[in-house]
């Protein structure tokens, strides 16, 4: 079991290693000549206007919120789905109740316009 974890860690390390090697090689082989015009922010050829990091609209946050609720739901659904055939009918009804409660949440978000892109 732990050996599997070490193997996963090896994949993680290799990902970092490969990306860094690629960047370093490109840095060695490529030219380095940052002129003033080259390192300005791209905005269709004009000078950039105003700050970038401004307040964003709320729709993004609402989508992320509804996503989080359903993401938490998945971690209940997955163990249930694995054991589904061994658990019997009662567990199935329990899960239908669980899903129904969250569907009420989805319906509420829908009704309140949290799913609208405006």
């Amino acid at each position, binding site marked *: 079991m732990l*050996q599997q974890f070490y193997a996963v860690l090896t994949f993680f390390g*290799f990902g970092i290693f490969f990306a860094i090697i690629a*960047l370093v090689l490109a840095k060695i082989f490529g*030219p380095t000549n940052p002129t003033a015009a080259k390192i300005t922010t791209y905005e269709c050829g004009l000078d950039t206007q105003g700050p970038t*990091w401004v307040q964003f609209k709320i729709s993004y946050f609402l989508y992320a919120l509804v996503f989080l609720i359903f993401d938490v739901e998945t971690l209940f659904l997955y163990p249930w789905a694995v*054991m589904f055939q061994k658990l019997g009918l009662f567990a199935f009804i329990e*899960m*239908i109740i669980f899903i129904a409660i969250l569907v009420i949440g989805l319906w509420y978000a829908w009704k309140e316009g949290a799913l609208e892109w405006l």
Partner: protein
Amino acid sequence: MEGIFLRIADFAKQLFSSLNFGPEITSILMALFHVSAIIGFVLLNVLVLVLLERKLSGYFQQRPGPNRLGPNGAFQTIADVIKLFGKELIIPKAADKWVFILATIVVFIPAVMLYAVIPFGKKMIAIDLNIGIFYFIAISSTATIAFIMGGWGSNNKYSLLGGMRTVAQMVSYEIPLVFSLLGVIMIAGSLKMSDIIAAQKDVWFIILQPIAFIIFFISSIAELNRAPFDLPEGEQELVAGPYTEYSGMMFALFFLAEYANMVSISAIAVTLFLGGWQGPILPSWMWFVIKLYIMIFLYMWVRWTFPRIRIDHLMHFNWKFLLPLSLVNIVITGIGIKLVNWLNWF
């Protein structure tokens, strides 16, 4: 032919064991061996895929595509790679330098880690985790972080808008993607990749779970940010979205991760819906590659056939159609399994 790669792996294992480092170091060395082989396979595939995509897009639009370098343009991507190495890495003055650079590394980590649980053939899986498919879902959910880092770190309005859109789209479509796999897991009764493939010995899950496959296919296109869901980098409105300020190898890493993700998600589709590496006569890994390329062709076909859709339509389609549909699919699958078990009981 069947065991050719297994024999190479066995040889490597014996070699590493003979060094007497103990089982832990040996398993790390074996993982290094696996990851190098897999990345080699993926890089080779990406070279082919980029060319294939450009040729196919050409044919779909009744033009020849790249055809100057080598026979029928076959060496085009090799030239592109050499060109990318010779490009300058430009870091904009206004950018948040470390976040900007680290994003290119962060995007690559999940792309590599996903390959740990992909069965390339009979017994050809790097790590057959007990939680196999759940590991895949967990790791792929972190792909959004790089887009936030890149979009925000560039300090460019197009990048930030594109990055935020990418993240909003990816998290939204993750839910139906994850729910569509539940039907398969309910039938297979395991998260382990080898068990899921074994459960498809008689009948592929695409036949038992056609709705789930369609939901999976649509939402995986959105997860990959490919047309018709390529709004984050819609070049007519957002220049190149989160990639706007990236140049040379930094752009190439994003690009590479995108294609690597396409290969891995196609591999998951093959494993979960198309019976994995199972098939008659030919070696198992060859069946895997054939099915993989069928899936990839589907992705390319869709990309060059449908026009891009509007972002509000994209979000509404997900939350108001795909998500309820995937929930209904779970309930129907449950009732179906119970009915079949009940009929068998008599």
